[in-house]
């Protein structure tokens, strides 16, 4: 066979490619698979958090905010532990961003709370003097898209085996479970329960009224998502 290959340059080239590609695969893939496995404590997003993630993407937050803490002292001092690839296991797509016009948000849930986000989205300059971030007033009026979020949950659960309704080990040794609702109505009800907890910490009366009436404004979903970034 090698004799035959020596006389056929095209197939020889193909054989060389296949050999080297195979060597590359067995060297690269196992490491890659190991590094991209979820880190202990990384949970899939709940319905409301995922809806908030959609709001985040829809408003292009990732154009100005990165979600990637690099291993430099200056960054870990400000943002917390540097990012690990496994922490993005359930991010589809990942939102690393390419430019920091605003600060990194990888672990914003550790050092900002619901009421701060509320003040900040309404009027960023009132909380951070000199901020060039625009106000996001419409988030308080538009409703979050729970249907799409639930659809995504079902899809990633079926296609990528994202572990919903399964025990996930946490950093402190306990187990945690993220629920995937059985029906769309149940997903709406669960998201509303989650939204009520957030809205209780908010001051905007319209938002509180909307949640009480069974409607979830985008800001509530977005805050749920931001609080989940840890």
């Amino acid at each position: 066979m090698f004799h035959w290959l020596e006389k056929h340059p095209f197939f020889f080239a193909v054989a060389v490619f296949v050999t080297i590609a195979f060597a590359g695969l067995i060297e690269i893939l196992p490491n890659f698979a190991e590094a991209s496995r979820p880190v202990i404590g990384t949970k899939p997003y709940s319905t409301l958090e995922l809806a908030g993630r959609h709001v985040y993407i829809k408003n292009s937050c990732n154009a100005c905010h990165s979600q990637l803490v690099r291993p430099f002292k200056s960054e870990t001092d400000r943002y917390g532990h540097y990012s690990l690839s496994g922490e993005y296991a359930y991010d589809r797509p990942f939102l690393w961003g390419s430019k920091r016009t605003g600060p990194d948000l990888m672990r914003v849930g550790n050092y900002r709370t619901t009421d701060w986000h509320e003040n900040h989205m309404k009027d960023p300059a009132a909380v951070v003097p000199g901020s060039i971030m625009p106000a996001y007033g419409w988030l308080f009026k538009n409703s979050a898209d729970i249907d799409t979020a639930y659809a995504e949950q079902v899809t990633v659960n079926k296609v990528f085996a994202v572990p919903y309704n399964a025990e996930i080990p946490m950093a402190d040794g306990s187990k945690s479970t993220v629920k995937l609702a059985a029906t769309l109505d149940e997903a709406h009800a669960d998201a509303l329960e989650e939204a009520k907890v957030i809205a209780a910490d908010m001051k905007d009366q319209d938002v509180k009224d909307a949640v009480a009436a069974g409607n979830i404004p985008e800001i509530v979903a977005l805050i749920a998502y931001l609080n989940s970034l840890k």
Partner: protein
Amino acid sequence: MNKTVLAAIIVVIAMLGFTYVAVGGAGGMGGEGDWVNKLAVLGAVVLVIVTAFVVTKYVRQMQFDRASGKLADENWDGIGEYKNELPFGWAIIFLGLVIWAIWYFLVGYPVNAYSQIGEYNEEVAAHDAKFEAQYANMDDATLKEMGGSIFIVQCAPCHGLQADGMDGKAANLNHRIAEASVKHVIQNGSNNQLLGMEMPMPDRNGLMNANTGALITDAEIDSVAKYVAGGMKGTAGADVFAGVCAACHGPDGKGMDMVAPNIAEFNPTLIANVLKHGKKGVIGQMPAFNNLTDVQVKALGAYVTGLSK
């Protein structure tokens, strides 16, 4: 004269001329140029001459040299091989590479391999060592200065640069406690681990006024809230404080260890506990700041305590 040598001389003269035109006017060749310029020009001249010399040598070698030496006995389809010695320099380099390869396989790659995280760890260790050496024995002024700069980065986004809480978006740290906070705590109780442990304060249904023998009333809450927020001055509300609050918080409001926190003034322990556990009150929730080092917590304690004095 050989044509190649002639061409080399012409090229050298042309390039020297070009160099002179390019940098001579800038003082390089003249008397007024500094020694760096002169050195650069000298380097350029040497480069041109050496290049011309080497190129000429090898071109001539290709033109006129013929292989020489003793042929090996074997002959492959008319292609022979000379029996030349391996050049000494090559042999040295080959042996050197063998030694280097042994070092690299056993020590260089496994032990001294570069890693980004390794560099980060070294950076952090170096910084920590320098920090500890520099701030081992801080005086009060340095401690407060450090606290102030940490405050700007970590605390000012909510509490504001003036620590005034920016119109009620966070607690005003220039006063120990606000009237609204006192009322909220009395009405709803509180369990913020200000003492560093779980020690819940009851809500209004568990607060008895020792003077009247009844539960605290709305009017009493108003007056005692004003009294506490006003810094325990005056007489209005003082009796309610003595009857309701003093049992745990002490007659002067300075708290008791393991019982109740200081509500008369800030102190570094209180601030350290808030930073460790976070806090939830009438304004909203403050997150815990466990990323701060002990020295930073101490510095913030000194700074924030100093704000209300």
